[in-house]
């Protein structure tokens, strides 16, 4: 094909045509039409805009601006004004956009919903001023998602039409090629070498060096190849780079071809990317027609022919020798190196292969020079890298950052955390060749070396965020199942080793693993890494090795406890609700029994799993609801409300005695072993219930006059009436558990004497030691510690509160104190240092408090207590404002200059509690820094015959979690004392119905009747009245019965 060489004047005309649409002198609207956008309706929107605009407004196509989470993206151009960026634009709003483009008033109206503006854009090969104005709208790089991004590779993406070569030329495109052609090939290579550009496919090999070696190799024909076989699951930056700006790839390759003396080029692209292939093909045709590639480029005598091949779906073709085999029409199996492709590659000729993003960097390096490039990023790793930030993160999309950016600022800064209260557990980088980096290591700087030190790799740039609901054993299994399937089978270590690793991981995930498996896995991982032929095998172990390194406890849980805490490995639980419940209550079971009309059996089933069904049904945190599958349809099932109903009904009818008698009768024969428990709270009660049923002689010590701990002394009666608790505690007496009240360990009885008198000693002393604020005036009269005050109030020992009560804090203790004070006729204000959405208190408690008229003040950090004659009269606060997202997933409160005082008669400081286990003896039980008792994670054993459970181990947690630890320790203690496996005998099968419910229709959760707020002042009557029989039955039928499947089982039954 002969192409006529264009004159400089003709190029000028191209650029002029291009700038007319890049920076239009008429109103215009552009739509991001990448695959992501189209997948979210951008194509429909584009058509709607065209229909609405007719020929009145220019409607433009653009590539993707990267904010995939909020697609479709629309940009509104108005001459002299900044571009306005709109996100989540709907086709139904097309008319509004067109109107705004034409009419000033409509523009101002619409501008209010703009997400950001772009006043000026640096295309790197040129810069364009769009205009100024709209001061109220943030610049694009002030949005959290874009803040800190450096768009070097994505320099044009979203701002030009990828199908219009004129626009690319207009913003300086192909000027780098022209510049390179004016240099000698060696000079061009020297520039790339000086820029210290490294391979962006993941390995990070110096590009300049690679080019130099290639240039030195003589060959009848020489090839440059672009590896666009982006096979890493979880990575899609190459797709977007080609879709949004195909000419930068062509230009980069043309420069490389010239520098290396390789006049033929091939792009090997994934078949799964049809749009990228289509756009690149058009771009190649246009560039050839314009004479930027083809014969005698720009009259210099340099020729470059570029062709495009679509792969056929084989991950191993990302390996350069396999890719070459694939191009040669063979199965894509790699071959040993040397010879390297630069010596003997495609068709046996010298061949250079670089990744898409590496090529895309080249025009910038040449156009702006090496010094410009090395000014970005780190000394060893200059420049930027594009990452696909995806998974459990709020702002998903493509982020481009200078190398060396800390991982945490990507995840919490640009990603803004999970966008929910879920805790981020890890980030997986580098796809199947990479590793999992735990949240504790998010301070790591993202560059080639730092990630490798942690056992991960940068790879092609996939960054998948995982939260508490993701299982790390499953992640390892997922990747090995992928690499094992994608292994080409040529070398034995990869082919056999990976399938053996997969077998072991499958066993572990199904509860059939053994501890020896971990050792075997590690050994296999090393062998496969060291002896595989190509990169696929050499890196395939990384996901296993990093999860074993950072998440070994999860493997151990799967193997020893047969438990998958995150609720992923389905063979290890009955249903997600059961798995999330710290007590592993058989929730589908009692719901089914209720449906079958077997109330007594349903009650007995709940009681065996949770000895305080009435109390916990009222005050539980309801872990079960958080993972209820029904929630994805409408609302979760109110599992707890139902077991409260079961208990209340049985107690009302007096029929609980029959069930209790059964439990007492089936008590195991006395073992002669003695167990002492320090603390009669939820943890101690759960442990004593199971241990006494197992036949042990159990004595529970508590410093208070009655049993119940936080249930009695912390939680106010309007949430949990004490007669319900007293009724349930009767069972302990019947079981023969001995209580020793009003006795403090370390004061009335020595810890060591207990330890020597009993076969086992359990510390269940909780976490009730109030934290202090550490501000001036905290010791003034009228300043109370929150939890301490609640206890005193419950025992009738609290002094009469003053009229104006000020509660500091946002947790349950703060709300309990506030609502108690409201009932004591106080005017209550709660001040919290974060926002309402950030409050850790239960949502239902918060709503209740608001209904009662309790005043809330947010974003206030107490800095001083002001007093008069030794008594507090006000609290001084610093006004805070929300900052970036912190690891708890909430915006960090940041100080402002403003200060406010809130006058009051009493202050209640409820800013958290901590563990005080000093009675155990200082430092003897490897106490963590914050005073928590260190125990073996699986059994709860501290050392010798001492165990610890509940908040004393975890710090302030929920009553259900404390009971769960008590239950687990009871099992472990019985196993150790008796060398038997008898725990399972404490449960029984009830043979309930196993019929799948009919296809669900949307229904809301049943709500129980509440005492109206106006009737709550001055009394402590229970607010929630509980379900009627009809409501309970109806609610039970909402269960989707996730337990009905072949492999459902619980480690507890």
């Amino acid at each position: 094909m002969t192409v006529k060489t264009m004159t400089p004047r003709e190029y000028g005309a191209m650029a002029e045509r291009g700038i007319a649409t890049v920076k239009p002198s008429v109103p215009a609207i552009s739509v991001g039409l990448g695959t992501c956008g189209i997948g979210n309706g951008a194509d429909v929107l584009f058509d709607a805009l065209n229909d609405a605009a007719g020929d009145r407004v220019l409607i433009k196509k653009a590539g993707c601006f990267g904010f995939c989470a909020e697609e479709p993206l629309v940009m509104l151009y108005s001459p002299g004004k900044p571009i306005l960026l709109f996100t989540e634009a709907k086709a139904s709003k097309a008319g509004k956009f067109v109107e705004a483009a034409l009419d000033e008033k409509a523009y101002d109206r619409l501008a209010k919903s703009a997400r950001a503006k772009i006043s000026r854009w640096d295309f790197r090969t040129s810069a364009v001023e769009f205009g100024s104005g709209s001061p109220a709208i943030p610049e694009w790089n002030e949005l959290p998602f874009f803040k800190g991004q450096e768009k070097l590779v994505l320099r044009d993406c979203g701002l030009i039409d990828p199908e219009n070569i004129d626009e690319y030329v207009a913003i300086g495109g192909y000027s780098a090629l022209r510049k390179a052609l004016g240099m000698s090939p060696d000079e061009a290579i020297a520039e790339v070498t000086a820029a210290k550009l490294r391979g962006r496919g993941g390995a990070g090999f110096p590009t300049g060096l690679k080019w130099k070696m290639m240039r030195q190799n003589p060959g009848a024909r020489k090839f440059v190849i672009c590896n666009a076989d982006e096979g890493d699951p979880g990575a899609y930056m190459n797709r977007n780079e080609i879709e949004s700006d195909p000419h930068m790839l062509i230009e980069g390759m043309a420069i490389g071809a010239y520098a290396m003396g390789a006049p033929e080029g091939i792009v090997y692209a994934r078949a799964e990317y049809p749009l990228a292939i289509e756009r690149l093909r058009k771009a190649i045709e246009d560039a050839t027609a314009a004479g930027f590639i083809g014969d005698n480029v720009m009259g210099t005598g340099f020729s470059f022919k570029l062709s495009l091949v679509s792969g056929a779906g084989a991950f191993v073709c990302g390996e350069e020798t396999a890719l070459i085999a694939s191009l040669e029409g063979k199965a894509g199996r790699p071959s040993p190196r040397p010879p390297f492709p630069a010596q003997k590659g495609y068709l046996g000729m010298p061949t250079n292969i670089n990744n898409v993003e590496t090529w895309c960097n080249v025009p910038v390096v040449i156009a702006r020079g090496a010094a410009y490039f090395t000014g970005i990023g780190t000394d060893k790793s200059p420049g930027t890298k594009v990452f696909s930030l995806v998974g459990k993160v709020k702002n998903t999309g493509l982020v481009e950052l200078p190398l060396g950016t800390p991982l945490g600022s990507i995840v919490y800064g640009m990603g803004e955390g999970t966008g929910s209260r879920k805790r981020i557990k890890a980030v997986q980088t580098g796809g199947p060749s990479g590793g999992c980096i735990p949240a504790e290591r998010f301070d790591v700087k993202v560059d080639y070396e730092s990630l490798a030190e942690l056992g991960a790799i940068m790879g092609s740039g996939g960054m998948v965020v995982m939260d508490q609901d993701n299982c790390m054993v499953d992640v390892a299994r997922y990747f090995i199942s992928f690499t094992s399937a994608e292994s080409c089978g040529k070398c034995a270590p990869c082919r056999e080793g990976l399938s053996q690793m997969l077998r072991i991981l499958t066993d572990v995930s199904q509860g059939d693993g053994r501890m020896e498996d971990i050792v075997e896995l590690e050994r296999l991982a090393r062998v496969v890494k060291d002896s595989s032929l190509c990169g696929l095998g050499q890196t395939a172990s990384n996901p296993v090795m990093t999860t074993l390194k950072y998440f070994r406890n999860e493997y151990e849980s799967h193997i020893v406890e047969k438990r998958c805490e995150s609720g992923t490995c389905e063979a290890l639980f009955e249903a997600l609700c059961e798995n999330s419940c710290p007590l592993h209550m058989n929730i589908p079971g009692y719901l089914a029994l209720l449906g079958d009309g077997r109330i007594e059996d349903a009650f007995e089933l709940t009681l065996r799993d949770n000895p305080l069904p009435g109390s916990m049904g009222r005050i539980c945190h309801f872990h079960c609801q958080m993972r209820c599958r029904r929630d994805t349809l409408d609302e979760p099932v109110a599992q707890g409300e139902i077991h409260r109903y079961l208990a209340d009904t049985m107690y009302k009818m007096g029929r609980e005695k029959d069930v209790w008698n059964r439990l007492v009768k089936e008590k195991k024969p006395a073992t002669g072993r003695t167990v002492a428990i320090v603390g009669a709270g939820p943890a101690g009660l759960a442990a004593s219930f199971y241990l006494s049923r197992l036949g042990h002689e159990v004595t529970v010590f508590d410093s208070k006059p009655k049993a119940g701990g936080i249930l009695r002394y912390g939680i106010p009666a309007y949430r949990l009436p004490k007669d319900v608790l007293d009724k349930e505690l009767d069972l302990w007496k019947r079981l023969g558990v001995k209580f020793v009240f009003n006795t403090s360990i370390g004061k009335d009885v020595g810890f060591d004497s207990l330890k020597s008198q009993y076969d086992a000693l359990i510390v269940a002393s909780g976490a009730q030691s109030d934290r202090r604020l550490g501000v001036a005036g905290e010791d003034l009269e009228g300043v109370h510690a929150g939890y301490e005050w609640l206890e005193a109030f419950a025992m009738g020992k609290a002094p009469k509160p003053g009229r104006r009560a000020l509660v500091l804090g946002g947790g349950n203790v703060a709300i309990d104190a506030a609502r108690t004070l409201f009932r004591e006729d106080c005017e209550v204000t709660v001040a919290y240092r974060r926002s309402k959405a950030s409050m850790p208190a239960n949502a239902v408690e918060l709503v209740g408090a608001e209904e009662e008229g309790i005043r809330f003040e947010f974003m206030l950090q107490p800095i001083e207590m002001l007093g008069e004659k030794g008594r507090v009269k006000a609290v001084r606060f610093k006004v805070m404002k929300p900052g970036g997202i912190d690891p708890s997933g909430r915006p960090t409160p940041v100080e402002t200059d403003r200060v406010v005082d809130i006058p009051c008669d009493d202050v209640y400081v409820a800013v958290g509690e901590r563990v005080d286990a000093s009675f155990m003896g200082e430092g003897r039980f490897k106490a963590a820094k914050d005073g928590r008792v260190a125990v073996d994670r699986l059994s709860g054993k501290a050392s010798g015959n001492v165990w610890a459970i509940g908040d004393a181990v975890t710090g302030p947690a929920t009553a259900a979690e404390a009971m769960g630890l008590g239950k687990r320790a009871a099992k472990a203690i019985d196993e150790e004392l008796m060398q038997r496996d008898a725990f399972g005998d404490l449960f029984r099968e009830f043979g309930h119905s196993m019929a799948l419910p009919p296809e669900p229709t949307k229904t809301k959760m049943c709500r129980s009747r509440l005492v109206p707020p106006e009737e709550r002042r001055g009394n402590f009557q229970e607010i929630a009245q509980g379900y009627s029989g009809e409501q309970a039955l109806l609610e039970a039928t909402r269960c989707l019965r996730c337990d009905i499947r072949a492999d459902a089982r619980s480690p507890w039954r």
Partner: protein
Amino acid sequence: METRFATSTPTGTDNGTEQPGALLTTLEEAQRTDEYRHLSEATLRKVALETGEPLSRVYSVATFYSFFNLKPQGKHTVIVCRGTACHTRGSLNLLKEAAARLGMPEFREDEESSFTTDDRLFTVRTVACFGQCALAPVISIDGTIHSRVTQGKLCTILDAMRKGAAR
């Protein structure tokens, strides 16, 4: 006829035998134009004869790449993305749901990469990654990508598709 993936015709080469990736391209084209979008034994023999490649090599290539189907495909194709982002957001359950709804509850992805219903109306398969990770989990139905799919949304889509197919 499904037009899921565009096949490429390399440009800039005049000589068919030297065209890079020629065999892949030929097979992709043969599959695209086949009524059931698959490569039958007859097709493979024909390709071998026409390209002059040994049948063993044609077969080796056809079985190596996941893009090629050796079994006839259904009229409608449901592809569940099993990329990492989709996996972490629950795509395995979507795959199970799709399989169960279309009458193949025992389908397991580690044993087969796809299945087709007996009436050849539906094929369910997986893909390593669509590169639509930001909108995970995604599925493709007859080439149209659906993003942020929930179990409920999937059921609605499949039921509508089944009704359409029955007509």
